[in-house]
């Protein structure tokens, strides 16, 4: 009797703890987010231009022969002079520099251009929203060494906002050719803070065969072209990605990304790439759903929570975005509301690959988590015993978990610990679980 009460108490404590923590962070963001918009116009900092602040791996500007913009005289030597002369010869063409405020453009015009897009896409056109997003990427954008990848900028409102906020290096990856000329024109007017590429970030690293043509691309080509080299996992964030996740295959895209993260494939070969993505509210709620929410606590969320610090930066109603199709706002069939797009920061944890987890055994972890959470209302001990008979209770006691805990009540961090213990034990390496992984690794989520 007493043990039961104890157990119940423990469970209650566990779940309430987590909830409060998560609630707090969500709440703060929800409350704070709107205030971050500066209604009276953008604040653009004036600071001396310094080479140090450029992102990592930036092609050394002084003698970059292969760089597309290399025909221009290198800004480091010409900068002062250029600005002086520009000041002298008013009205003449000069590359814009970070001191110049970029006009975000007429809203109507931007809407028209966005709606001309043939694919279904969402666009940021509202200047306030763009500025708010730019602020969230900060706060000190001008000091940050991270390169910013802007996915599918479209008419380029956010691009300008980012540059206005002082971003040192923005790479605009636009998948739709029709937006390219305007973006490229902006690129030319600027002094190297912006690079425009015909590339769809969400179609990087295709799985099928066939020749790869822009906007499809392989990560290594993209990063080599941009001169960004591989960084250690524990280094600072080399690249921040910002964009709106395409609605068509939101979940698939997120799954693919998290698998790549664990195995350090794709962009994650180059370090801890931070994602700042607008995802639908519904999917966000699933992403962060805590243990105990039996319906939505799935491998998908567990893996993300395990790998990243997840922060909700901003919530914006669907109506604030311009959609390039007649489709109305997506309905929410499920339990969760789906009235907003959520700007979510997914920053991979620096300590992910410590204490036993490596990119090469991560696939076993993926498989383990997915097997466990295919059903949430089964006992974890049964799963463990299935993989290696009679070892379940030993493992659970080592983890300090109750014997009858359900798979849907185990925290992401505990799954990680569990895996580390299993990986050390001799019994599990004999288990078929390991075989399974090898067999399925190519297929899972990449199909």
């Amino acid at each position, binding site marked *: 009797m007493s043990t039961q009460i104890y157990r119940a108490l423990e469970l209650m404590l566990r779940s309430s703890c987590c909830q409060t923590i998560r609630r707090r962070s969500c709440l703060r963001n929800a409350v704070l987010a709107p205030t971050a918009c500066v209604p009276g116009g953008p604040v653009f900092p004036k600071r001396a231009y310094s080479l140090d602040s450029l992102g990592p791996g930036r092609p050394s500007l002084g003698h970059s022969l292969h760089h597309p913009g290399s025909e221009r005289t290198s800004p480091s030597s010409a900068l002062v002079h250029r600005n002086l002369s520009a000041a002298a010869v008013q009205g003449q063409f000069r590359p814009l520099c970070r001191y110049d405020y970029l006009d975000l453009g007429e809203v109507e015009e931007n809407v028209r251009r966005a709606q001309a897009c043939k694919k279904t896409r969402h666009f940021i056109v509202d200047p306030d929203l763009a500025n708010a997003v730019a602020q969230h990427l900060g706060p000190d954008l001008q000091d940050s060494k991270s390169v910013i990848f802007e996915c599918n900028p479209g008419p380029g409102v956010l691009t300008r906002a980012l540059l206005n906020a002082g971003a040192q290096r923005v790479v605009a990856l636009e998948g739709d050719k029709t937006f390219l000329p305007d973006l490229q024109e902006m690129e030319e007017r600027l002094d190297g803070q912006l690079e425009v590429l015909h590339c769809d970030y969400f179609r990087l690293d295709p799985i099928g*065969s*066939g*020749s790869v043509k822009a906007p499809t691309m392989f990560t290594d080509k993209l990063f080599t072209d941009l001169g960004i080299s591989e960084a250690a996992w524990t280094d600072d964030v080399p690249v921040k990605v910002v964009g709106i996740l395409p609605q068509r295959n939101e*979940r*698939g895209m997120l*799954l693919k990304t998290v698998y790549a993260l664990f195995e350090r494939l794709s962009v994650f070969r180059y370090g801890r790439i931070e994602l700042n993505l607008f995802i639908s509210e519904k999917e966000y709620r699933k992403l962060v759903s805590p243990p105990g929410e039996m319906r939505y606590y799935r491998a998908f969320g567990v893996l993300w929570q395990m790998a990243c610090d997840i922060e909700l930066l901003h919530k914006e109603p669907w109506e604030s975005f311009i959609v390039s199709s007649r489709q109305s706002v997506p309905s929410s069939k499920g339990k969760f509301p789906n009235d907003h797009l959520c700007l979510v920061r997914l920053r991979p944890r620096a300590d992910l690959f410590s204490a036993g987890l490596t*990119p*090469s*055994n991560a696939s076993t972890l993926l498989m383990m988590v*997915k*097997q466990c959470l*295919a*059903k949430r209302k089964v006992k974890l001990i049964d799963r463990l015993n*299935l993989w290696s*008979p*009679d070892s379940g209770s030993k493992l659970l006691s080592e983890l300090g978990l109750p014997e009858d805990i359900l798979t849907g009540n185990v925290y992401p961090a505990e799954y990680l610990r569990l895996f580390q213990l299993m*990986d050390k034990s001799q019994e599990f*390496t004999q288990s*078929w679980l390991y*075989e*399974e992984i*090898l*067999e*399925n*690794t*190519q*297929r*899972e*989520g990449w*199909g």
Partner: protein
Amino acid sequence: MEKLSQEKKNKLKKQQHLEQKMQRIVKEKPLGQSKGSKSSLMATGTSHKIISSAAKKSKADMKLSDKIYAAASSTTAVAAATSAKAAVAPKAPKPKQKDSKSKVSDKKAAKRATTEGKVKVKDEDLANVAELKQRLNQQGQDWTSLSTTDSPQDGSKGSLCGDIQLSIRSYLEACVFVGDIERSQSFLLSQHRVMSRRKYLTTDVYNIMMRVWAKRGMLNQIGRIFILLEEAGLKPNAGSYSAALECMGRQQNCSPKVIWRCLNKMREDGLSVDDLFSQCVFRQDERDMLLRAIHTVKPDYEPSLSLNASQCSSPLVQDFYTKREHHTYPKLDFTQEELQERFKRQLSVEEACTVTIDSVEGLKPITENMAKMREMLAEQRAQWHKVLLQALRESKMILAKTNTKAYKLDLYPYLCLLEDKEYVDIMIQSVTNMPPSGESLKILARDVGNRIYTKYCVRQKHQNQTVEKLGSIYDAYTDLLAKDTKVYNVLPREQWCKLEMEQHSGPTLQGGETTWPYILILELGTFIVDIMVKNLKINSDILNPAYDRKLIPILYHMYTFRSTRQVGFIKPHPILTQMQQEAMETKLTFDSSVMPMLCPPVPWTSVKFGAYLLTPAKLMRTLDGAMQHEELLEKCENLHPVFDSLNQLGNCAWRINKPILDIIISIFNERGSEKLDIPPPLSEAPKIPHFHPQDPTYTASEKAHMKREVINAKKKCSEMHSLRMDALYKLSIAHRMRDELFWFPHNMDFRGRTYPCPPYFNHLGSDVTRAMLVFAEGKPLGPKGLDWLKIHLVNLTGLKKRSSLQGRLEYGNSIIEDILDSADDPLNGKKWWMEADEPWQALACCMEIANAVRSPDPTKFISHFPVHQDGSCNGLQHYAALGRDVIGATSVNLVPCEVPQDVYSSVAQQVEELRARDAAKGLKIAQVLEGFISRKVVKQTVMTVVYGVTRYGGRLQIEKRLKEIDEFPKNHVWDASHYLVRLVFNGLKEMFTGTREIQDWLTESARLISKSGHTVEWVTPLGLPIIQPYHRTRNQVLKSTMQHINLQISHDAKERPDTVKQKNAFPPNFIHSLDSTHMMLTSLHCYSAGLTFVSVHDCFWTHALTVDTMNKICREQFVALHSQPILDELSNFLLHKYCSTIQTEARTKKYQEYRRLLLLLGKVPQTGEQETG
């Protein structure tokens, strides 16, 4: 145009005349009174308006809907009435309010049109629409006689609650079958009492219970059920009365008064006594009891039975059925006694349901390890058997106790249908046949469920006492087939029906067994699999004593992940796999339906009866759970040509080509041969590299590389395993049959393409299986037979595709040395045969030729060898013929030519010309491709274009071919395939002008039909109804303890059609339905000419002696088929089917859609000149 306007003027005159008449009627009758007859109201209502409009406006301004009605009424008043009725009929199930509403709005619309006259439609269109409507009216009566043209709403209404109804019936029948009367009675009552469930009950469900009481002679119980029927608002049908009378017949002294009362009541319900005998399905002695009851009141009553002799309406086979005097139906080369003997053997096989045969691997010498493993496995199995039996009994007990609610459908009765032991046998069989890579739970459960169902069906037949009767009819039936009996001029089906009618007492053979709904089969299967997973265990140290001893499960349930979906899998533990592989067991256990039949199959006489003796078989193969095909077939009155053709194909006897089989087995048991398509054993598989992912000495990229290696090796292994097992099954079955003569019962897919029922070993298989089969019957080669054998051999090599027959024959003669060498010393000689496209069939042919030329007189040499005649690109042939496209027809050999044309070579040639031109213009990719364009590169794409392959698919095909060419630069493959597929498509478009047009018309028609919410249906020229089962996916979840199985059902007729699939699949399906029709026609006429004939879709087989006759029949039937106005008939059918609901609200979007559909369906593509050759 002139003609048209003339016609219209005439019509207008007629209209006015008629309208005046109508107006008079309208004036005479107040509107309110005429409400009784909807049709007249409609007609009068509209024509009334027309008058004013005709007076005021010019005809071009007249509104379209008026025009239609005008046209409709201009024929005759009767026709108009029928059309209006037809228009109303499909709406019948809906509330009546709508009818009146539409009438009102109709009138409003008419008024608006007359005053505004804004809607201007082109004159021509107007005329077209009017004409089409007229056509519809005229045909209305013809079509309504065909029951297949029921409105779609009616059709779907039947299946609306189909699954639930079926579940209820199955449950009740299962209860009755096991004798659990109490359960069945309380179940029926509880269903009846709950209003929400009562709506699913039909009279037939109540009848099931009546039958039970009838057997016990409890008339009062039957009376109660009659009251229940009335309560439920249902009418008793023939089955109900038959049960009541049967019950009276069983009572020793039932008063005639009671019987009279019953008969009178029956007459009131519009049923005659004869109806009982013709409509009811009788089991056991039910029929005799019924007759006894009737005899008490009408002592000399004899049921008058008429043979269902309605003649086939298709003109294609009219002569075949009516003019029989010159027909010589073939006899089988057996005495009657032999056939009867064979029947008994087949019966005993099917009664057992499973058959255990020797594996050809068992011919290998036994090693010590093998012996040990076999022993261990046997021990384990005995153990598992015990455990499973125990577990099954326990779970049955739990089920019996827990289901306290009578109305709930549980699995309990289904677990009592068979002996406990039989369930356990099925489980053990599943474990044995489990592939090492596991099986998805859904498939495993389905297989287990189906096995139980099959056994249940066989047991039902025993219980109904049909087996005995089957035997006696079959015995009499053999009289028709055997060689030592008189010559008949009736077909097997006709004879069987006649015999059944003669031996009418006792049970009916077609015992209306209810097919279980798919969901039930899965549920039952999952339940059984769950027992297996939970209870089957093995000691972990059984193979390696070094491990700790633990009891581990041999099957485990886990998930594999495909994209964002998870699929439940059952996998065998590696220990089990290893034991089974090393034991190489000598026995294989199959379902009996896997084996060919030992006696001629039972002829198909109805949709539900034919093929195997006891094992249930479907006339039409469908997706699991798709009901629409069967419903359609059952409504169809005359499927005789289809039945007869399937029977003809099934009646062909086969035997094994033993020398070839022996060579194949020897290679199979050696090391296999990938080149000759004999899968090697797993011992030949690449070793799976072993590595520890944790080993720090490897770098990351090395690890990744090794991981990939392991994955590839594993994939290869599992592929090899499945290929090997497939070959093992085929060879073992062939080996078992080596001294037998056997038959393949046939059925068809939903487009009418025919297939042998046994899945592994049949003549449709690969080169290897085809080479193992020869006709059981031998015929002398005759004067030209040897030549045909040689030509056949050259065809099998794949060489000389563009040579004339003479050229091929000459080539054959020139290599006679090689042929004889291959025949004499296949494995150690010059091995000429191994280079052929179809090496094994080539080898078999070499042997046949060698035997023939060495015989004293080759013309008298008895040959069993099937000679094949291929259609050359069948799809294109049909399109060319449909379009009367002369150039296209020439290139696919429809027009007689000196040298056989090869469409693939022609296309290749044309593509090459275009390429050369582009290359000269400086196109890079065209230059790269120089010298690489061949017949082989384009063949597959050309062949599949007619079957609707898209550019995307075509590119993949060409890409594959280009990759096979070693010299071709790999980095250009993608561009080149893109470029080539464009050329091939353009080339075909130019060569087959008519084809494209027809294809487009078909596609567009299907698109509009589907958009209007209907599924595409049509009827082949032989009268086979076809429906495309493509609908939007519906998810159904089966909740079992192990996992929830999500069924994505894409064939549910209740769902809206899937337009993309409906449209893309219509042209190929239509062409397939035509080529199947052609095959059936050929088969029927070959039968009447006494030939042996079988088909592999568009490739026809016969003896060397009769090749010429078969070719003649094949050509004649092709011409006959295409002399029919196929496209016009299709157009008429579609018009009637989808446009007979007249839409009247002219401005609505719906009407516009309707009008578009009407115009499109009526506009059959223009065809070229009529040609007869």
